[in-house]
Structures are given as structure tokens and as C-alpha cells.
């Protein structure tokens, strides 16, 4: 548990289902050095294509008490990935240094066995290259020292307009991702299979505003001069009947 495990934490309470993560993922990874994510018949009647990330939509409950849940789905980079041991060539592997599950496109024979072994349907065959592909957590981007530090994140995380996607090391208890999982009820998908997905989801929850005393009084108030305003005299001039000026 001490080694790094990079992962995404996706906040279903915040996701608005805009698909910006889908398009930015496709754009970055189709233009990357691993070659295009091919599309078949993209403008025709029956389009198809390779995607690492999709946003699905579910309706929970019965009318009129329904809730719409937008659900981004990509490879979960399981800590115990069932797709890796079944690969006959060793093309599928989990990196020891950061826990990212990757496919070596030069070794893959396209037998599709790993896709059968993934309960989440996270793997897709590229119909042009005939090899298995999946989310790489933008491994060609997050370590790129020529980018600004703030830009060394997966494309989907940078694109999300509502900051529904957090990226970080979930084995570091102080990372933003770990804290979100711990404090906001982060959970894993299909825990019944023991795959221990690294990606976590934050549940839908009631949003309320909780005011703490230090938010009502200026926090950076070293001289302690902020205080209650003096109560005006009853006969003092007032803008209305309530406040004095």
C-alpha cells in the first residue's frame, strides 16, 4: 500500500453530463504518439469508434421522484486487475511505480480475452489497429516535464468545467483524491468482484451550506479589531427603520 497508485475520483454530485471529458480524452489520445483512436463510419448512419471514456446517464427512482445521474466511465485502474493475469502475451500490465494499467500496443495480439475478463467493459478493440485499448490516465502527459506543473494532469480532469474529476495518488492519505474519498463517502464500482478499483466515485448527496463562525467574522484579523458594530441609538438617523448608517 505504500507505493503510488494514481487514480481518478469522480464526483457524481457535481458532474453535469456535458461530455467535455469524453471529447478532450478523444482529442488528446487520438493525437498522441500511440497513434489514432480510430473511428469507423464517423459521419455515416452507423458510426462507431474507440473511446477511453464515456459519460452515461441513468435515471434513479420513479416519476415524479426521480434523479438524473450522469456517470462517466473509464478504466478504473484496479489494484487487483483481473484483465492483467489472463493476457497471454504480457501486453497488459500494471505499472509498479504508479499503478497505471496499460496495454503494450506492440505486443497485443487482439485476442480480446482481457475484455472478457473486465467486469466494467473498460477495454475496447481499435478496429483499425486491431489491438486492445483503454484509458492510460494520459500517461504521456502527466509526466511531461515540458508542460506546466498544473497541466500535468489527464486531459479529462483539465477539461471538466465543474471540477467533478480529481486526480491523484490514492495511497497518499494527504492527497486531494484521498481526502475526497475519505471525507465525502467515496466508493468503488462492483465491489463484489474484489477487483479493488483505484478510481472512486463520490456519491450524489444533499448540498447544503454550513456556516462556520470563522466565516462570519474575518479570519485574517490579527489585531482583533473586527467586532460587532455598535448598536445605534433609537433616535439616530437610519436608512430604513432597521439599520443605522
Amino acid at each position, binding site marked *: 500500500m505504500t507505493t503510488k497508485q494514481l487514480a481518478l475520483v469522480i464526483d457524481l454530485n457535481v458532474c453535469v453530463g456535458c*461530455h467535455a471529458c*469524453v471529447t478532450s480524452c478523444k482529442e488528446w489520445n487520438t493525437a498522441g504518439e500511440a497513434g489514432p483512436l480510430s473511428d469507423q*463510419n464517423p459521419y455515416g448512419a*452507423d*458510426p*462507431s*469508434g*474507440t*473511446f477511453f471514456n*464515456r459519460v*452515461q*446517464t*441513468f*435515471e*434513479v*427512482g*420513479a416519476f415524479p421522484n426521480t434523479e*438524473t*445521474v450522469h*456517470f462517466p*466511465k473509464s478504466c478504473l485502474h484496479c489494484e487487483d486487475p*483481473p484483465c*492483467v*493475469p*489472463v*493476457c*497471454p*502475451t*504480457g*501486453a497488459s500490465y500494471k505499472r509498479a511505480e504508479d499503478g497505471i494499467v496499460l496495454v503494450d500496443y506492440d*505486443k*497485443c*495480439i*487482439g*485476442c*480480446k*480475452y482481457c*475484455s*472478457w*475478463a*473486465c*467486469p*466494467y*467493459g473498460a*477495454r*475496447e*478493440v481499435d478496429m483499425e*489497429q*486491431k*489491438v486492445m485499448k483503454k484509458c492510460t490516465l494520459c500517461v504521456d502527459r502527466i509526466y511531461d516535464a515540458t508542460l506546466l506543473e498544473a497541466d500535468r494532469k489527464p486531459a479529462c480532469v483539465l477539461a471538466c468545467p465543474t471540477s467533478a474529476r480529481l486526480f491523484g495518488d490514492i495511497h497518499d492519505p494527504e492527497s486531494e483524491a484521498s481526502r475526497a474519498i475519505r471525507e465525502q463517502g467515496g466508493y*468503488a*464500482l*462492483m*465491489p*463484489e*468482484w*474484489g477487483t479493488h478499483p483505484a478510481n472512486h*466515485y463520490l*456519491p*450524489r448527496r444533499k448540498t447544503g451550506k454550513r456556516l462556520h463562525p470563522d466565516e462570519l467574522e474575518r479570519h485574517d484579523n490579527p489585531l482583533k479589531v473586527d467586532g460587532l458594530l455598535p448598536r445605534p441609538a433609537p433616535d439616530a438617523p437610519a436608512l430604513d427603520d432597521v439599520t443605522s448608517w
Partner: protein
Amino acid sequence: MRPAWSVILLTTLIGAGQGLLLALFAAELAGLGGSTLFVPGAAASLALLGAGLLASFFHLGRPERAWRSAAMWRTSWLSREVIVLPAFMAAAAAWGAAHWLAQPTLALGVAASVLALALFVCTGMIYACLPFLQEWRTPLTVVNFVLLGSASGLTLASALAAWLAPSLARPYAAAALAVGAAAYLGRLASLWRNAHLRPKSTLATAIGVKHPRIVQIAQGAMGGSFNTREFFHGRPRELVRAARWALLALVFPVPALLLVSGHTAAAFLLQYVGLLAERWYFFAEAKHPQNLYYQAIA
């Protein structure tokens, strides 16, 4: 799952080939038969295995890299199958050649038989080792691969013997009836088991929302995707039901009648058709949990 013809042909053809070689070596151990049966029999077994191997290449996106698939035998049953299959073919060829050249055959026959059984286990475990394909996750999967393959091999041995060693046709037919009945019972047991399975995963665990009523509104793509093609058979319910009736009739009852009446070649051909239906149904009835994410297009 979508039944892939390459895999259906691979598993049924090599199963018959392995069963045939086991049947031939069993006769040799019992002191029956001779080179007039064993040499053509080994050739027929090799032809079935070669045809199955050829079919398997059509399953691969990159068949030119198939040699790489022997690498991960420590963890992958598919990799183990890739190693054991040619090893068994080599042993079967050596056993046949030894009979042809009148050399000692016992050690080669033992090696080929052990490898044939190992190949059955590898093929079955490829499916039985996937924990969340609950229809396959049972020892019955391996047992059925062994028994169904052996039964079809024995039926074929009976047909070959009727032509090349008539005195052996009846014993082989009797053995084919016994093993075929066992295989049929095993398959019925797995059909019964799979009809009573409760899926472990639900939409609630799939998206982590604890509500009994969840309906998919959109799956993120208006056209199809790999996920909608690979994991659904996409055939009408009538065809699935027809495949089950075909397997129920042709895997054992019809071939049994033909074996008893002495039509051994017809028995093998019809049993093989039944095994094609059996294997098609084996894939079609397996429900992959990823399908939970692909219930509605939009």
C-alpha cells in the same frame, strides 16, 4: 457473450481430435486394434487439431504476433493452451509415426494422452477462471469440455473402426454411448445450474447508487461500440431457444440411436453439429456484467 465462430470451431474440433486420440490409445492399452487403425486415426486427430488451430487464428486481430502468446503461462490459461496444443499435436504425430514405423509406442501414447487431458483442462479453464461470468465459473465447465470432447472422439473412433477395424466398431460405439450419456448429464446439470443463477452484479452495484429502480437513459454513444458488439449475441430469442433444442437433441439422443443402429459416420456428423450448437449456446447464454452499462442507447 457474442459467440465467435473461430472459437466455437477451435474448441469443438480440437475436442474431437483429443477424444479420438484418447480412444485410440485406450484400445492400444487394451491390446486391441493395430496400425491399420492407429495410423489413419492419429492422422485424423491431427487434421482436426490443425483445422481447430487454423480457425483460432481468425479470432486474433494480429495473428502474425500469435507466437507471443506463449509468454505468460505462469498466469494465463490461454497462454497454457497455446503451449499445450502444439505439444499435444507433436506427441500425437510422434505416436502415429511410431506405429507407422513399428517403433515402441507406449511412452509416446502416455505422453499424448496426458497432454490431451491437459489441453482439455486448459481450454475449459480459459472460461471457468473468469469469476464474473457466472455461467462459466463452475467445475462443470471443465468436466463438460473433457466429457463432450471425449464422447465425440469416441463416436468418431467408432466410425473409423467400422471402416478400418470392424471388430472394434461395437466396443467403441458402446464406449461412445457411455461417455456420451455422462457428457449429456453433465451438460444438463450445467444448463439447470445456469437457469437458476442469480446475477451478483446489479445496476445498483454497477454505478453505486443504492436504489431499487435505476433505468439507463443514455450509454454515451448513439451508434454501437465494441461493448455493444462483443458482449451481446444480438440474435432473436427464438434462435437461442432453437440452439438449445438442437444441443439437447443432437449432443446425445440422436447420435445414440444412430450408434445403436450402426450408422456411426452419421452419428459423428450429427453429434458434431450438436456440439456446434452446444458451444454457440455456451457463449450466448453467458451474461457479462458489463452489459449492465449498455442497456439503452439513448
